[in-house]
């Protein structure tokens, strides 16, 4: 029994290929996610920094600016005070603000408030009424007040600058993140499409082709050439498919041989009785259906028992084989002939009436008569045949053969080595 032999497939293992592809894609994906996560972290850090550092710093600067403004007001109050108590209150306020830790935190504010403090501690008479040179002190104070005003502006500007700087940094991070996303997203989509494309062309499409092949595969046609696949598994399936096709062809050939053997006579290679009867019935049915003429005939080798007795069974067999060769040569392709008994043969002659059949059979008879059979031992056998012909155009096969057999009997009775046609009046 033939075995399905599949040669070892070459190429890359699909598992390895897709494992590597998955590894590469997932690594790139992880790398991209990492980049995005890094940006997210930076955005979060930036936001946290703005919340926890920038805004408090801005507010501290604004509070400092507010205190410096309050210091200016308190200083003005010192000069504008209408009473000793009011001046005392204003001076107290200037000293208190100047000494507050919020002022001391900023070096510029600290330096300027030190000047203010010195001015009010030592440069200004504390007693009322104001001395005549009060206006000189006021002018000095106005100079300090102006410096305080400029410092206040600086504080506000610093605050705004800080905010815009932080916002700019945050915007830069977000812009970078957007650019990265713009690159990463199409890359991901591209990789995904590449993966799908690879799976489609390396796996799905070959499998579809093989599925189609399997659906259409038969033992007769040649298997179409399969596109070689770089994947070992696909190659293995393709090889198995080719081996399967070979096996099918082998089995079909065997089946055909067996069928031929079952239908043929071993000796003459003509149709055996069963096959002849089956084929004859089909032919007659077809001819009857098409209202075409058809004739049947039966032939018998004359004195065959005597030939066997004289020349042995081997000689008889040689005569039978020689007769079969004559039939193969003289009959037309459409004609049917079978060995239906020891030395009996039957014919179906489509598209042929009794006269035509008689002529054909006569030619065969003459050929047999004119060509003795050469035996292996050098002797020759002069054999003849008797043939009965019957019209089967409107007869069932059994009836027509019966008529042909009757005509054959008549030929035998009439002296053998002749062709007789069954007449309608004949029984």
């Amino acid at each position: 029994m033939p075995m399905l032999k599949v040669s070892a497939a070459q190429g890359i293992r699909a598992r390895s290929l897709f494992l590597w592809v998955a590894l590469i894609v997932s690594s790139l994906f992880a790398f991209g996610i990492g980049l995005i996560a890094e940006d997210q972290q930076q955005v979060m850090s930036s936001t946290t920094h703005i919340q926890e550092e920038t805004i408090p710093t801005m507010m501290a600067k604004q509070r400092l600016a507010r205190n410096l403004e309050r210091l200016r007001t308190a200083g003005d109050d010192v000069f504008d005070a209408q009473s000793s108590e009011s001046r005392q209150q204003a001076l107290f306020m200037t000293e208190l603000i100047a000494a507050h830790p919020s002022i001391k935190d900023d070096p510029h504010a600290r330096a300027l408030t030190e000047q203010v403090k010195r001015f009010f501690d030592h440069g200004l008479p504390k007693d009322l009424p104001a001395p005549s040179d009060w206006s000189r002190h006021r002018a000095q104070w106005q100079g300090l007040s102006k410096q305080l005003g400029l410092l206040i502006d600086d504080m506000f500007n610093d605050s705004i600058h800080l905010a815009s700087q932080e916002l700019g940094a945050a915007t830069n991070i977000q812009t970078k993140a957007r650019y990265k996303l713009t690159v990463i997203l199409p890359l991901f989509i591209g990789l995904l499409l590449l993966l799908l494309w690879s799976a489609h062309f390396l796996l799905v499409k070959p499998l579809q082709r093989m599925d189609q092949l399997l659906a259409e595969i038969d033992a007769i046609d040649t298997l179409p050439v399969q596109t070689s696949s770089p994947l070992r598994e696909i190659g293995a399936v393709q090889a198995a498919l080719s081996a399967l096709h070979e096996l099918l062809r082998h089995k079909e050939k065997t089946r055909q041989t067996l069928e031929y053997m079952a239908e043929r006579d071993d000796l003459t290679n003509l149709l055996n009785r069963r096959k002849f009867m089956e084929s004859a019935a089909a032919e007659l049915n077809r001819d009857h259906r098409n209202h075409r003429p058809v004739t049947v005939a039966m032939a018998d080798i004359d004195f065959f028992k005597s030939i066997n007795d004289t020349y042995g069974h081997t000689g008889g067999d040689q005569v039978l084989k020689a007769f079969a060769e004559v039939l193969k040569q003289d009959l037309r392709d459409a004609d049917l002939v079978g060995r239906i008994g020891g030395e009996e043969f039957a014919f179906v002659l489509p598209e042929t009436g009794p006269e035509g059949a008689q002529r054909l059979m006569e030619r065969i008879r003459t050929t047999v008569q004119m060509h003795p059979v050469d035996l292996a031992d050098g002797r020759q056998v002069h054999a003849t045949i008797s043939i009965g012909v019957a019209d089967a155009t409107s007869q069932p096969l059994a009836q027509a053969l019966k008529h042909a057999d009757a005509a054959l009997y008549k030929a035998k009775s009439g002296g053998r080595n002749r062709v007789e046609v069954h007449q309608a009046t004949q029984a």
Partner: protein
Amino acid sequence: MLGKIIFAVFSFLMASSTSAEEMSLRIGVLGNSVPMSYQNAKGELTGFSIGIVRALCEDMGVTCNLKVIALDKAVESLVTEEFDVVAIGLLDTPERRSRILLTKPFFRSASIWFTKHRKFPGTPGIKVAAVAGSVQSAFLQNKGWKMVPMQSNDQIGQMLMSDQADAGLVPMPTAIALMQNASFSSLNLQYQIMDEPGLGGDVCFGVTPKKPELKKKLDAALDRIKRNGRYDKINSEFLPFRVN
């Protein structure tokens, strides 16, 4: 089945009740410390510290139960967990940190030395008035100077004018309030701002050491009200300049 549903509803209500109790804070405050924490003409508690602690409670979504206590009981009441929070300006000192938790600073302060006869720190034999339990009194004790205890800081004028004390040491916010009072400023007292360690620096609220999580929540809320401007509005309402 119905019994199970009733039990589940009852359990839920009990849990909710417990949760509501947890959302309420017991807070000790001063009642006589203008402008930080005092009772107004209607008898309502108000002031900078009161405003800040109420803003913190509102921000945290908890109920504040304010109760007036004496300054010298403040730390002990937190240690014994009589209060969850003491919303009194407590100067950040190592002694206090060793006993209670302190929030992030809610303002920065100094102390003011008032004197009528130019008796400034270091003058031998002087008697200095200070509120019992305050850092000012602790400072005087550490220096070995004679302290005259006051019930509240607004007694300082009377103490100095009646010669019961040669000087008085008060925290900055109190000094501001006193100086804004015409009768006090008319005394023509001399003063000196003292911001050395123990008298000036960061001022915080106290938190019971049993609830460290509460301190974290208060700190976070304080950061938020500083960022959202609520703090500055309260500052403007009670104090003439930014004290943070």
